[in-house]
């Protein structure tokens, strides 16, 4: 299934792009991360410490064990620092 993957802040810099569309069979966020990590070193580096990352599914904060279901847009980013 085709899904949009977004990256923000230093994760975006490490992956080297802000968004991409990929065709994936991953059933959960964790499976998607494993799939990305296996692709290229820059993904492996970016996702080397998943515990320090956050994920949003269709713009709602979620977690790595969540099923992707019909999610269109998956965003990965470091802990937020607004305010």
């Amino acid at each position, binding site marked *: 299934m085709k899904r949009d993957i*977004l990256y*923000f*802040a*230093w994760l*975006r810099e490490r992956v080297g792009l802000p968004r991409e569309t990929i065709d994936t069979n991953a059933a959960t966020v964790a499976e998607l991360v494993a799939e990305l990590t296996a692709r290229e070193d820059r993904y492996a580096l970016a996702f080397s410490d998943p515990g320090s990352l956050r994920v*949003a599914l269709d*713009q*709602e*904060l979620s977690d790595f064990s969540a099923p992707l279901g019909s999610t269109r847009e998956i*965003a990965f*980013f*470091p*802990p*937020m*620092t*607004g*305010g």
Partner: protein
Amino acid sequence: MIPLDIRVQAKPFDYGQECGRFAQQTGRVGAVVTFCGIVRDTDTGALERMEIEHYPGMTERALTQIAEHAAARWDIKACTIIHRHGPMGPGEAIMMVATASPHRADAFAAADFLMDYLKSRAPFWKKEITNQGATWVEAKDSDEAALDRW
């Protein structure tokens, strides 16, 4: 529904003017509390500028949800949140919140709550550009811990 005024914008805003307008429009309820976050110098070198990245779409959504939670929990009659993104210099206002309530305790608690949640749950990321280079600001454990107060 109470009037929520939520703005995510690159352009500067005038904190004093926004405070005046908010109090003018909603102040008759009695108590107004505002918070303003301003770009300050860092410990690691003279700050040239700050750059804030955000997640368009999710940002507005997250801020609206946080404001709605505050409005459900405290007796507030109006709430404004303004947050900038993009580059900004030292001394410029980064963001503000304002709450109005008949009770000063509610106005304070709601503004304090908004700040805690906005800090750790709204998708903004700060980068500081100093004469030593550029650094992403790291989230503080104390910011995440602050959420347990509520």
